[in-house]
């Protein structure tokens, strides 16, 4: 294989990886911060994708304009879901283990609810629209314009979130909450307000991811589950709760998949990512980059 072919392979892996990292952001926030393993994450992503598609098809809005709209809509939905389910769950669960198990079950319920709502509302067909589908030439290699745009925006959102957590007072509060919920409460951080807010932002981010994905891929009501699994793999690679870890993990997974598919066969893609996932969970359950 020539040098430029290698470069193209790795670049396409990185582009997929950037999208993986974006998909994982919201879930990472919810699990790392609140121990809510939101298995319905992919379904909310699918809602964001459908919102964008509807905005584009029915009202002729630019998909880029729909990105903040789906963020806000899903964030509002997140606040409602938190108020209805997780607030009561936090209040009634005797300890964190039980809270996690019950939260997982509630998330399964949400998954059935949202996925079937979508297929009832929009039908099970494949949907999609053309947006910036022309190839862009960079050096020798060619990439689809919309995928490059999605990759760029994915990096922007990931870095913005990392900076938000690192630099602002809100971010400091959130990180304190990740380290020790009780300690955070003791120093006067308002967990009652921070929890719903962060759950909402987590769902909002999944909406953003869905909105961006709809620009480059076709969408169906059942598209969510593979993305949930990818997000799970990415955050296990990066370590639960670590944003920069998730970014690195996502990029790494993208490159591993691209290389693996090149050298074995494309039908092995799912097998490959599940093997990576199981191996990491078994050998390094705290994430690849933990000390």
């Amino acid at each position: 294989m020539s040098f430029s072919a290698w470069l193209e392979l790795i670049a396409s892996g990185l582009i997929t990886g950037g999208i993986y990292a974006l998909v994982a952001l919201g879930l990472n926030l919810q699990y790392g911060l609140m121990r809510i393993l939101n298995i319905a994450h992919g379904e909310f992503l699918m809602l964001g994708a459908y919102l964008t598609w509807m905005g584009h098809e029915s009202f002729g809005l630019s998909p880029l304009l729909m990105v903040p709209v789906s963020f806000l809509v899903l964030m509002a939905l997140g606040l409602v879901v938190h108020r209805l389910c997780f607030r009561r769950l936090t209040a009634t669960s005797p300890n964190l283990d039980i809270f996690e198990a019950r939260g997982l079950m509630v998330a399964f319920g949400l998954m059935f609810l949202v996925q079937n709502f979508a297929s009832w509302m929009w039908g099970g067909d494949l949907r999609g629209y053309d947006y910036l589908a022309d190839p862009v030439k960079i050096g020798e290699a060619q990439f689809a314009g919309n995928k490059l745009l999605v990759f760029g925006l994915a990096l922007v959102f990931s870095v913005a979130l990392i900076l938000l957590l690192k630099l602002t007072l809100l971010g400091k509060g959130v990180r304190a909450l990740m380290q020790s919920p009780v300690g955070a409460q003791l120093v006067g951080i308002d967990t009652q307000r921070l929890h719903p807010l962060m759950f909402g932002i987590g769902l909002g981010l999944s909406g953003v991811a869905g909105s961006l994905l709809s620009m480059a891929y076709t969408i169906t009501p059942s598209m969510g589950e593979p993305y949930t699994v990818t997000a799970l793999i990415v955050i296990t690679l990066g370590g639960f709760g670590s944003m920069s870890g998730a970014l690195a993990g996502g990029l790494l997974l993208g490159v591993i998949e691209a290389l693996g598919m090149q050298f074995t066969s494309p039908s092995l893609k799912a097998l490959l990512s599940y093997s990576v996932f199981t191996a990491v969970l078994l050998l390094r359950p705290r994430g690849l980059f933990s000390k």
Partner: protein
Amino acid sequence: MNNRQILVRDLLVLLAFAGWALALPHYGSEFVVSMALTCLMYVALSSSWGLFCGSTRYMSLATSAFFGIGAYTSAVCLGQFSWVESILLGAGLSAVVAVVMGLAVLHLRGTYFAVLTFGMTELIMHAVTFFEKRFSGTVGRVLTVAPESDTIYITMLLLAVLAVLASILLRRSRFGLALMGIGADEQRAQTLGVNTRLVKTAGFALTAAFGGAVGAAMAVRWTYIDPHTVFNPFIGFQTVLIALIGGAVTLWGPLIAAIVFSVLAETLRLQFPQIYMMSLGLLLILCVLYLPGGLASLRWDTFQGWWQAGRQWARSWRAGERKNG
């Protein structure tokens, strides 16, 4: 009631259920019998799930892996071996896989365990798909040799009765108590001299054996199987759902919930598949939030508790209204 009386009562109830189910094919229509078969399948799966996962609180999502392994075993073996042998082989193979899996993952607790068992199920499914495509040259398999439908029904009934019987007897044995002890506090159980690793692996293998046997028996009923139908994670989810909604720690909970579910599924699923799934999701959420002990923990006091909580909520809401307005 003392311990012995409870044992006798449980055994009598089981006997009554089994007798009723045994008589069903003689007067019920074909539709009713097929519904009863699905029901028995979920009784066996969720009772055996509750046996290990309910008492130790290790939430396994791997039921569909064992189900699929059983189904494939009977699909491959039924030509050479007899019906009973194929089912035993399916159960045995699933148990072996469970022992290997258990040794690898049973030191992880909580969400890690649930997620990892789910991942391993998908891994097995994709591995089987790949193997079939590469070496067998086909994705699905058609089962040409099949026993009569009466035989399948009686086998499934036997498996369901065995699963419930096993949970009745196990909770009185040292082994069952050790499982309960692990569920309550694993470290304490270990300190008190329970070999937790051995007990957990054995319990997991027992659950898996039931899953494999049920899969082996169900495969002939479906006549055509492929990895996506028999390793369908939904089989695992629904088992967990039934056990949790019924009450995973209780004896009769999974059985009650399985009956409720099968009736709901057969009546709603054909006409309104999405509505069925949506109500399933809603039911699960409501159950986890308001009835964490499951249907079997439903007593007169529960309704009273809800009524009082509702009144209290209304009162505080009205008070807030007065303050604001």
